């Protein structure tokens, strides 16, 4: 046995450690809870000089999977990690990876698939991967996450197949346990061996075409080869497990049974619930009940024979499904268990119970109850365990809804000057618009000092009349709509955050069509699509699509410069040099290493009638621009408004100072205030003219995330940022002077 050491770590940390020891070439990733810690840990080690894995933060999972594909096509060793909707967004890449036989290892920290949105664990994501041609290993505990990550690569490269290592989100990904890891990276590298492949995109000596266009027979042949590889891999998994056992002292089986030899009732449970159920088995055994529990450590290829051998003597098998294949009479685990047991001629009873969805905890007592169901003569074939009518469901109460008449106090109005081609605003002062009822209700759960509600309220103050919201996933939606409560007093729709502007596009199309057909009364609605800066990363395509169609909406971006809802990973808006959970500072890292995206200019280039940047530090300007945006959205087409939004938690500054920090960002011209109206640029607040212009360091010094940049060693970073900020501002001024 090789030398090992004890660590206290969770599943994600162990997956990262395995990746570091393997020394993959590339990891393409996009943050999604609960798998994000893997990339975060690797990034931390990268900054400390402890790993040289090339980490690429993509703008979405689809691109992350594309990066992984390209990297494997280039002959690299490739690593990925995702969860839930991230896996689904990347799903179309999965059969490409397997169909063109590109090995890689991807960790899936399993989480329920939205919607409605939930970040907790179940198996509804991983089951989508069953038909993708990937090997799927399932680790029931953190130790197995480490071990399987090593074995997975071995299998991947032997069969030229991608391998997923799945484990329970949170229960396994986030629980810290005492685990063993190899002390020396060398041990790992000797175990996995070297990997070279003649057929790769970088082989200019022997060019190869990867990804041919194929006809009927060829595709049949291609899929048959994939099937054969999967079958062969099925035969090698146990030997690979055994060899690894010799190396590590930890022996795995494709199907792990606990006290099943003489068990009359057997539970089949995937993941962490297996561990919990073992305790229930011990308890029931003491009382004389012959109970046992089984888990599968491999889902693809499905270990049918091993499962049958483990369960064949039981009178009743109850399969716990942590997801449902709606309408099929069970989740995929029970469906496949039934099929497999029938194939081998099993004569007992099989029950299926959906349990633990959305991270509902699974206690020993729950396992005991499932065993009790096994003894019930009348137990039905398939049911949901734990589902009940909750009395907390909200009931309609109009007392806090806003009605059309409430929202037109007539404090702000716009008129279009067609000669000058500008929108003129009347009213809209901070004091007067106090009378505008807030579309957002009190009682939301944002952090103390959060800028999001501040910016939303300022935006809404300038907008008279009906409003319909679409929100992307992000802090803004999470803190306002936690069921059974909602903070919205006007209609609101959430959709996943690569798709908000498209979703709003659909709403607007029905609004226009219904009005045209006379199915809806005349009247105006201002459609406001709200996104964070993350939504403008992953959803930029959707935003540009809506912009090119010039659909009549306001796209409002609250830009807090990071993925704050998931613990602050970098976004493309994060300032150059800022530290985040995926841009650590250390001897090999100074923070984020590319400049913030200039989204306002990108949207302006799309040619929409109105683009504006706003800041809470200039509230009157903010309100006026909101009014103009609404006027344009109602009459002309799309308006894009971007606010710099404070995040005390992750900017790492004091909540009470946020308005000053935002003001400093404006005064240093990192976040210039301007508008592009019908193609004409106008700077609405020029710090240079006001004599308020400050160097970027004035702003950087106010936030914990950038304060390190003031140290001498980062002078070059600051200089580069200052140059970029000045260059962008100079260009803006040029545009304003020469419309």
């Amino acid at each position, binding site marked *: 046995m090789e030398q090992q050491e004890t660590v*206290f770590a969770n599943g994600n940390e162990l997956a990262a450690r395995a990746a570091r020891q393997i020394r993959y070439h590339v990891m393409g990733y996009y943050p999604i*809870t609960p798998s994000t810690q893997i990339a975060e840990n690797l990034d931390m080690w990268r900054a400390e000089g402890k790993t040289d894995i090339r980490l690429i933060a993509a703008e979405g999972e689809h691109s992350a999977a594309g990066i992984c594909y390209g990297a494997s096509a280039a002959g690299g060793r490739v690593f990925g990690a995702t969860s839930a909707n991230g896996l689904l967004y990347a799903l179309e890449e999965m059969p490409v990876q397997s169909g063109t036989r590109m090995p890689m290892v991807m960790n899936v920290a399993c989480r329920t698939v939205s919607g409605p949105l939930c970040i907790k664990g179940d198996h509804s994501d991983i089951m989508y991967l069953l038909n993708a041609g990937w090997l799927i290993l399932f680790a029931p505990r953190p130790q197995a996450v480490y071990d399987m990550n090593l074995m997975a690569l071995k299998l991947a490269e032997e069969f030229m197949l991608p391998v997923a290592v799945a484990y329970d989100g949170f229960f396994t990904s986030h629980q810290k346990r*005492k685990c063993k890891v190899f002390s020396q990276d060398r041990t790992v590298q000797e175990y996995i061996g070297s990997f070279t492949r003649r057929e790769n995109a970088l082989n200019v000596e022997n060019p190869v075409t990867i990804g041919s266009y194929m006809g009927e027979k060829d595709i049949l042949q291609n899929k048959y080869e994939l099937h054969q590889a999967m079958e062969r891999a099925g035969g090698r998994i146990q030997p690979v497990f055994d060899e690894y056992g010799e190396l590590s002292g930890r022996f795995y089986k494709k199907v792990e049974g606990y006290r099943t030899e003489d068990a009359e009732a057997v539970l089949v449970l995937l993941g962490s619930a297996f561990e919990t159920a073992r305790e229930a088995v011990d308890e029931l055994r003491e009382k004389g009940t012959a109970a046992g529990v089984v888990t599968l450590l491999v889902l693809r290829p499905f270990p049918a024979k091993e499962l049958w051998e483990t369960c064949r003597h039981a009178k009743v098998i109850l399969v716990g499904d942590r997801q449902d294949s709606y309408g099929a009479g069970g989740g995929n685990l029970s469906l496949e268990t039934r099929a497999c047991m029938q194939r081998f001629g099993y004569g007992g009873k099989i029950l299926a119970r959906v349990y633990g969805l959305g991270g509902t905890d699974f206690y020993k007592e729950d396992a005991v109850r499932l065993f009790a169901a096994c003894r019930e003569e009348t137990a039905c074939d398939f049911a949901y365990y734990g589902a009940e009518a909750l009395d907390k*469901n909200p009931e309609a109460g109009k007392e806090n809804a806003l009605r059309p008449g409430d929202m037109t106090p007539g404090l702000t109005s716009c008129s279009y000057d067609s000669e000058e081609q500008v929108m003129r605003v009347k009213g809209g002062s901070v004091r007067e618009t*106090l009378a505008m009822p807030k579309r957002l*209700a009190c009682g939301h759960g944002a952090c103390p000092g959060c800028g999001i509600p501040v910016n939303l309220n300022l935006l809404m103050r300038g907008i008279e009349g009906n409003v319909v919201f679409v929100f992307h996933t992000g802090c803004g939606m999470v803190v*306002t709509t936690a069921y*059974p409560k*909602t903070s919205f007093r006007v209609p609101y729709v959430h959709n996943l955050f690569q798709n908000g502007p498209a979703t709003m596009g659909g709403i607007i199309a029905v609004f226009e069509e219904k009005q045209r057909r006379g199915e809806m009364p005349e009247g105006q609605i201002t459609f406001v699509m709200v996104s964070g800066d993350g939504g403008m990363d992953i959803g930029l395509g959707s935003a540009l699509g809506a912009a090119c169609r010039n659909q009549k909406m306001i796209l409002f971006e609250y830009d807090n410069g990071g993925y704050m809802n998931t613990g602050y990973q970098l976004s493309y808006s994060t300032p150059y040099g800022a530290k985040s959970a995926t841009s650590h500072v250390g001897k090999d890292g100074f923070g984020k290493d590319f400049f913030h995206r200039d989204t306002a200019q990108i949207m302006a280039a799309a040619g929409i009638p109105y683009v504006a940047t706003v800041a809470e530090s200039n509230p009157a300007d903010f309100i006026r621009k909101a009014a103009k945006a609404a006027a344009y959205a109602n009459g002309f087409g799309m308006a894009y408004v971007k606010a710099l939004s404070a995040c*005390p938690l992750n900017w790492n500054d004091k909540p009470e100072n946020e308005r000053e920090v935002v003001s400093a960002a404006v005064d240093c011209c990192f976040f210039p205030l301007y508008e592009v109206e019908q193609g004409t640029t106008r700077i609405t607040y020029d710090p240079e003219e006001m004599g308020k212009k400050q160097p970027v360091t004035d702003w950087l010094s106010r936030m914990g995330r950038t304060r390190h940049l003031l140290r001498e060693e980062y002078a070059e970073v600051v200089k580069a940022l200052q140059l970029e900020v000045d260059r962008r501002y100079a260009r803006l001024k040029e545009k304003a002077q020469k419309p």
Partner: protein
Amino acid sequence: MNDYCEKAKKILPCTDENGYYEIRMESIGGLGANLAGKMLGELGALHMGLNVSSFSSYGSEKKGSPVRAFVRYREGEEEILRNAPVLSPHLLGIFHEAMAKSYPVFAGISAQTQIVLNTRMSGREAAEQYGVQTGTLYCLDAGNLARSCKCRLNMVMLGAMAAASGFLAIEGLEKLGQESIGKKYPDLWKANLAGMEKGYQAVCDRQGFLCGKEGRQVEQLPQSPAGCGLDSMQEPYAGSFKGVIGGMNPAAGNSVQNNLSAGREGFIPVFHPEKCIQCGLCDSTCPDMVFRFRPGIYKGMDTMVNHGPDYQYCKGCLRCVNVCPTQALTKGEE
């Protein structure tokens, strides 16, 4: 009790029927319960020869929202099989007293539970105030101790919990902190070390208040094994769902029913109406819409008049204090 515990030198003073010693910490995001749990985990796993798991209640990363941290110990290498939250803690740390009003922080305590509560009250007063009927209660003003040492609250609580446990060595925690925080931020660690020792001393200096020698407080944590008996499994579920399908919420703006005061960390804005000029800047900076402006008369003019903050929603961020041009809002202690 399992055989292993009988044979080996026992470290844990008490365990449940399966040999677990369980710890729960009740806190709000930002006070450091998560880190405290991690440290107790590492202490057990790497320095005491215990088998350990540690984790926190999972959710999105919000400051001020309730957080629970859990630690499980088992003697030696006995496997830890449980994944679910700790329902019946042997050691319970309540970091944030205000939570006791709205959350079942004392759920599942029994006669063997050592409870550490951050409060200004005495053990007797707190037991009466919160209806604690069993276990031993140690009270300390951890907030004040942390302020006096200029350290994090979690360090004071860690020291206090170590003392209350009777077996967690403060030296071990100090060593751990020295290795992690101390190496990177030596000055910061000095203050935190002092805080930890103060917490430890505060519990050592006085006897715990014996709330009761028997029984168990049965109030349940959310998501404990539900009362879902077999009934719901006999028939394909056809429950009487009362809400709107698809998880839609027709109760527009019903978050006004929420009370957010438990998320504050001790400070509030104090309103001095006589100084207010009705400029509305406070309202423009308040993320929580706490200011109640109503139509009225100010200096003989019809205008929106500030009737001050509604503390039900105030999270104590003090943004308003900073922007108020006339000091009509000032920082005050709760």
